[in-house]
């Protein structure tokens, strides 16, 4: 397993390196925005991966509520944590792109606001998982995750439903939207690279969550079998 992980790490590093070259040097310069548009090649894949991970979290939370499976709970936690990390990247790269192009860092339009709300929902999920105490925490967290996921389609559809400062979608955005084929190549390379990286994060975090459960169980077991006078 370790060899496989190392092999995937090498593939990820190579893909990330090539994705960087594609984004910075190979993809054509955008006619209106110039080089700053290249932020898009990290912004868009990060957003898609965050959505995907929140979907995984949604499915794992449902699975946990049905089966009370430790694996499902560990997967839900891992996907939420990595999803928040990618969503943070989206929320930081967005304003860095907006400032030179729109002249403002932020505007309270539907896409940006719903993305910020999405981030806050999953940060609250992680805060709940980290700080709350009690056996029902995974159940409460699963319920929060299931209802929290409802914001993902709202974020995705916001630029279709509302008039926004944010540009129209690159897929199915109608006339005048879309990407040049050479730009798609850069998007897909970076998407593949970050997907692989996200997969590795999930794998490591999932294993750590399972180890934490095992340790908690072992501690509980040990304290049950402690001699009554042993703790004095």
């Amino acid at each position, binding site marked *: 397993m370790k060899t496989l992980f190392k092999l995937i790490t090498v593939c990820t590093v190579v893909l990330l390196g090539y994705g960087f070259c594609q984004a910075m040097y190979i993809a054509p310069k955008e006619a209106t925005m110039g080089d700053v548009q290249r932020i898009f090649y*990290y912004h868009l894949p990060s957003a898609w991966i965050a959505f995907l991970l929140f979907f995984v979290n949604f499915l794992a939370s449902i699975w946990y509520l049905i089966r009370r499976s430790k694996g499902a709970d560990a997967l839900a936690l891992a996907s939420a944590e990595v999803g928040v990390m990618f969503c943070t990247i989206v929320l930081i790269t967005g304003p*860095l792109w907006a400032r030179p192009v729109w002249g403002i860092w932020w505007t309270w339009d539907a896409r940006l606001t719903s993305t910020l709300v999405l981030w806050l929902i999953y940060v609250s999920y992680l805060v709940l998982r980290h700080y709350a105490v009690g056996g029902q925490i995974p159940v409460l967290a699963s319920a929060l995750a299931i209802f929290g996921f409802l914001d993902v389609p709202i974020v995705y559809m916001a630029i279709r439903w509302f008039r926004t400062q944010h540009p129209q979608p690159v897929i199915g955005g109608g006339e005048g939207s879309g990407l040049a084929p050479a730009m798609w190549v850069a998007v897909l390379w970076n998407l593949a690279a970050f997907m692989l990286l996200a997969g590795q994060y999930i794998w490591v975090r999932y294993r750590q969550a399972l180890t934490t459960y095992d*340790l908690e169980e072992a501690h509980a077991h040990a304290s049950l079998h402690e001699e009554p006078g042993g703790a004095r």
Partner: protein
Amino acid sequence: MNPSVNIASGDKFLWAAYIVVWVIHACYMLTLVNRGKRLERERKELNRN
């Protein structure tokens, strides 16, 4: 608010964005490594006891 769009200054924003992305990833990797080490240490302590 300055509505003028200064695309020429976009390069520093581009590099800032790429650097921020990799700083966030590096911080997260560091968090995973530290957590892994702590769990391993706890597991060893538990086995010793």
